[in-house]
């Protein structure tokens, strides 16, 4: 049986529907935020793989073993010293701090939603409304906000936002932080698209290949970026390819966007 989302016509229909409703939907959430006198949490459906504990971390954004701390936005792999709660699939919750009608900060959570509180206003949004709002933030002028809206956008249970993130990554007029975040998620998306996610511990040989790629990534940019671009495209071992894609995504170099576009089949 073909999944609904795997059918190109269905995806196209969703995209058209989302595009058509964008201005109104974005305005709806944005309008409600502009009149809010306290933090607002926007809750919407999460992509199928992602999970979290609803308060401190998000995991499996793609079908991999990576986790992100929601407080410090650090990326890590679950290890033996893991002491956090279970990773539960649930809605994405973006808590927006509003000051004078302007959103000044976003924090994102996945998983169990905390009990309703009078300190926070809640908007239960459709995926289309949420992605339209987040798209407007990612493409907006506030560089810090734009960067912090990338992960919430990727988390939405919607068609992948790669075309938008490619535009952002290639746009020299945008701030480095949002371009870097866009590249980072494009890289993760490419890894998922190629089916080379890290799902379990590497073998020692894989670890060493990854480390060798990391060592090359620490060379001066003039050397490391071309080497990583080449490895991202041609390395035959998944661990080496995955590592090259990751470190390439960390360079912030706009040439990485072209490599990721190729890997995602979008060029």
């Amino acid at each position: 049986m073909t999944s609904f989302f795997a059918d190109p016509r269905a995806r196209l229909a969703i995209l058209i529907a989302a595009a058509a409703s964008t201005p109104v939907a974005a305005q709806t959430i944005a309008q409600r935020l502009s009149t809010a006198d306290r933090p607002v949490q926007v809750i919407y459906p999460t992509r199928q793989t992602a999970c979290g504990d609803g308060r401190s971390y998000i995991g499996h954004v793609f079908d991999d073993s990576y986790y992100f701390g929601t407080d410090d936005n650090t990326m890590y792999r679950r290890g033996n010293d893991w002491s956090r709660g279970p990773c539960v699939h649930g809605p994405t919750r973006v808590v927006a701090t509003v000051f004078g009608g302007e959103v000044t900060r976003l924090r994102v959570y996945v998983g169990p939603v905390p009990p309703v509180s009078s300190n926070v206003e809640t908007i239960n949004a459709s995926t289309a409304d949420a992605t339209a709002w987040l798209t407007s933030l990612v493409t907006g002028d506030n560089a810090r906000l734009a960067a912090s809206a990338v992960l919430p956008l990727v988390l939405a249970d919607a068609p992948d936002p790669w075309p938008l993130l490619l535009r952002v990554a290639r746009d020299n007029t945008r701030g480095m932080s949002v371009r870097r975040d866009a590249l980072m998620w494009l890289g993760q998306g490419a890894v998922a698209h190629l089916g080379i996610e890290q799902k379990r511990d590497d073998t020692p040989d894989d670890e060493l290949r990854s480390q060798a790629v990391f060592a090359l990534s620490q060379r001066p940019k003039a050397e490391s970026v071309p080497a990583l671009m080449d490895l991202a495209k041609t390395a035959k071992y998944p661990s080496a390819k995955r590592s090259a894609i990751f470190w390439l995504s960390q360079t912030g170099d706009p040439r990485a966007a072209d490599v990721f576009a190729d890997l995602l089949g979008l060029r």
Partner: protein
Amino acid sequence: MRWSVAVLALVAAAPFSSLAAQSVARRVDAVREGTVRLSYPARPGVCGNGDGGVSINSRRGDGVQYWGGRICETGPVRVSIGRSEGRTISVRKWVGGRWPSASDATDLGSVDPTEAAHYLLSVAPTIGGRNANEAISAAAIADATTIAPELTRLVQNGDAPTDTRKDALFWLGESDILATEFARLYDRSQPFELREQWTFVLAQRQEGPTLDKLIEIARNDSDVEIRKRAMFWLGQSHDPKALQFLHDLILR
């Protein structure tokens, strides 16, 4: 007038040679309690601000150097040794500057730098911690004949604290030991922290034999984590052989 100045300079330079028969160790050991001071010439390339800041430059630059707005003096190395119950319990060093005038410390004056270095390395294994670090570095910056054999013994001393052995290894790598001989000293049975330090120190030498050793460690060491450390440092090398090794490992 000029002659008298020259004679005074010669007399001032004489003490450490005329007292050579009485070793630094014996003179320090003669003090049971309190502080012992001594000083000796620093090796070329070393200077300090007299206040704990030390600069070590392998290129012997001409002209006056500065450290934080103060002249970086090329010596002497001044060492203060704390003694308690007949044992050395602390060591601190400075380069340049002067001792405070009022003190009840026993001042040995200017001593032979090689003897001082040997003494400081001999106490390093037992005092440990920062004191050992100070003792080893004070020895390493002395204008002494080679201390590589003493440093080697300290690196290989399994009874010494690992941090002290790591300090000794660092300075051994910076010493005049031949790269081939140095690379041969790598020992897989040493503690992890020491082998980790080896990868760093080998990389700092930037010579053929040490690079070959680093590649050998990255290729063959039984400990994957040590191999990874070696790879990191190979990535920092300017030698094409190092980069070729990394590429081969990724693609093979």
